[in-house]
C-alpha cells in the first residue's frame, strides 16, 4: 500500500493511502504533476503541502474519504438535479456535530478547494437542508448573519414576499 503524506497549514503530517486521494481532484493533479505514481519516485519522501487546509479540518476530510472509498464520482454539470440528492445517514451524522459551526463551513470550503465533488455536494446539501422551513430572521440567527436591513427595508421586502406567495 502506497502512502502519501499530506501536510496541513499548521504543519501536521497525515500519511494517507494513495487510493483514497483519487477522490480529490486537486491532490490527484498534484500527484500526477509530482510524478508520485512513478515507481522510481519515493513518494514517502515527497509530502504534499496543503497550505489552505488546517489539520483538524484535514483530519475530517480524510475520515470522510475513508468512509467513501471507491464511491463513484458523478461527472459533469449536475446543477439541475441537486434537488434529488439525499444526504445519507452516515454523512448526516458526520456533519451534524459541526452543523451551524465554523467546522462545517471550513469542511465545505476545504471540499471545494480540494475538489472533492461528492463531499462538496453533500456538505452543501446538508447546509441547505437547515434552511428549509425557516424564515429569513431564523436563518440569520442560526447561521450568525447580522441583520443589515432597516425596518423600512424589511417592511418593503415583507410586502414583496406577500406578493410572491
Amino acid at each position, binding site marked *: 500500500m502506497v502512502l502519501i503524506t499530506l501536510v496541513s497549514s499548521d504543519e501536521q503530517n497525515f500519511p494517507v493511502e494513495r487510493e483514497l486521494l483519487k477522490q480529490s481532484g486537486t491532490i490527484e493533479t498534484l500527484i500526477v504533476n509530482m510524478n508520485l505514481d512513478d515507481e522510481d519516485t519515493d513518494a514517502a519522501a515527497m509530502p504534499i503541502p496543503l497550505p489552505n487546509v488546517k489539520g483538524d479540518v484535514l483530519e475530517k476530510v480524510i475520515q470522510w474519504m475513508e468512509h467513501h472509498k471507491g464511491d463513484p464520482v458523478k461527472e459533469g454539470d449536475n446543477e439541475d438535479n441537486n434537488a434529488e440528492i439525499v444526504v445519507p445517514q452516515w454523512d448526516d451524522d458526520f456533519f451534524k456535530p459541526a452543523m451551524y459551526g465554523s467546522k462545517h463551513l471550513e469542511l465545505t470550503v476545504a471540499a471545494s478547494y480540494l475538489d472533492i465533488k461528492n463531499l462538496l455536494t453533500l456538505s452543501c446539501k446538508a447546509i441547505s437542508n437547515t434552511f428549509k422551513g425557516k424564515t*429569513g430572521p431564523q436563518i440569520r440567527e442560526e447561521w*450568525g448573519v447580522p441583520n443589515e436591513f432597516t425596518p423600512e427595508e424589511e417592511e418593503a421586502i415583507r410586502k414583496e414576499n406577500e406578493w410572491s406567495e
Partner: protein
Amino acid sequence: MLSSLKKKMLPNRSKKPTLFDLLKKEDDEEKTQAQASISVLPDDLLLMIFDNLSMEERTPLGTTCKRFRELDFELGKRKFDSIYVNWSKKCHHFTGRVAGIDYNIYGGTIEGKVYPHLQATRHNLRFFRKAFAKQLIISFAMKLDKSEAELISSILKTVTFRELGVFFEATNEYDADVIPSLFKHRDLELAKVTLCWKRSFFHDGKRARNLVMKLPPVKKLQIEFEYSDNKFKRFLNKKFGLFNEFATVDGEYVLDDATLQHITSNTNHAVIVGKSKCSAQGILNAFKIVRQSPLEKKLVFFFAPRPIIEEIISMPNLCFDNYDWNHDLIDRSSKSLLAFSEKTGAFCTVSMGKVDENGKMISWNID
C-alpha cells in the same frame, strides 16, 4: 413599472472572504464555541447551497441579508407570468412580471428619463438566467443591428416558456438570428408560438418564410403576415386599421409549398393569416400529411389563391361535396377533411384537419 425599479438597485456584493479570514475568525470563535457565520462562504459555495432549494424554499433568502438576496437573484430560475421584451428606437427593456410586480432591465428613454443603453453586463446577462415564463412576448419596433440581436439572444438564452409571441413592427434583419435562438435546446412540443408581422410595415416574405422553416415542432402556431406592399395602404392601415390585404395575389407572401409542408408536419394546430403561393400539388401533399397523422386533433388553416383552389376542385379523381361556394372533401378512413370556402378577394380559405364520426371538424380550445 418604475415603482419596482429600485428592486434592481442591489447592494454591492460583499468581498469574497479569503480562507485566511475564515481561519482567523475560527480562531476567535473556538474559545467560546460560538456559532460561525455562514457569510464567510464564498459566492460560488453559497450559490451551490441555494441551488439545492426549491423556488418556495428560496423565498426567505431574500429577507436574510443583502448578499443572500443578491445571490438568490443571480442564481436565477425565477418563475414569471410573463416576460416582455420591447425593442424600439426610444428604449429597450426586458420586463419580467410575476403577480403584478415587474422586474426590469432597460436602457434608453423611459418616462422622460434617459438611461444608458442596455449592455451585456454580468447583471443583465444573469437577470433572466434559467427563468421560466408562461409567456414570452417580444416586440421589435426597430431594425436590430447584429450586436443588439446577440444581446437579446444571450439575455434570453436560458429562458424557457410555454407561449412565445413575436411581433415584428419594423423591417427586420437580425430577427432571423434572435428568434431561432429561442427554439434551440428547448422542448416546444407543447408550446404555442405566435409570429406576427404587423401591417403598415414592409416585410420581406422570403425572410419570413426562412424563419418559419426554422420552427421546431410546436403544438399551436399562429402566423399573421398582414403585409401591405402599397405605401399609401400602409399609411391608411396605420391610421384607420383594416384594409383588405387579399384583394390581389401579388405581393409578399408568407406561405409556399415548403413552408406549408413544414408547418403541417410540425404543428397540431396552425392558423396562417397571410398571402400564400402554394401549388395545387403542394396543398394536396400537405393534406396527405394530415391524413397520415396519427393525431386525433389536427387543424391547418390558411389562405390559398383562388385559381389554385379551382384547379383542385376540378380534379376528376377528387369528389368534393359542395354547397354554395363551400367545398368539402372527407377521407373517412383517416377521418380527415379538406375544406375550401370562398373569401372576398383573390384568396380562398383552406382548412384541413381531423373530423369526428359525424364529419365535423374537431374544434379546438385556445389552450
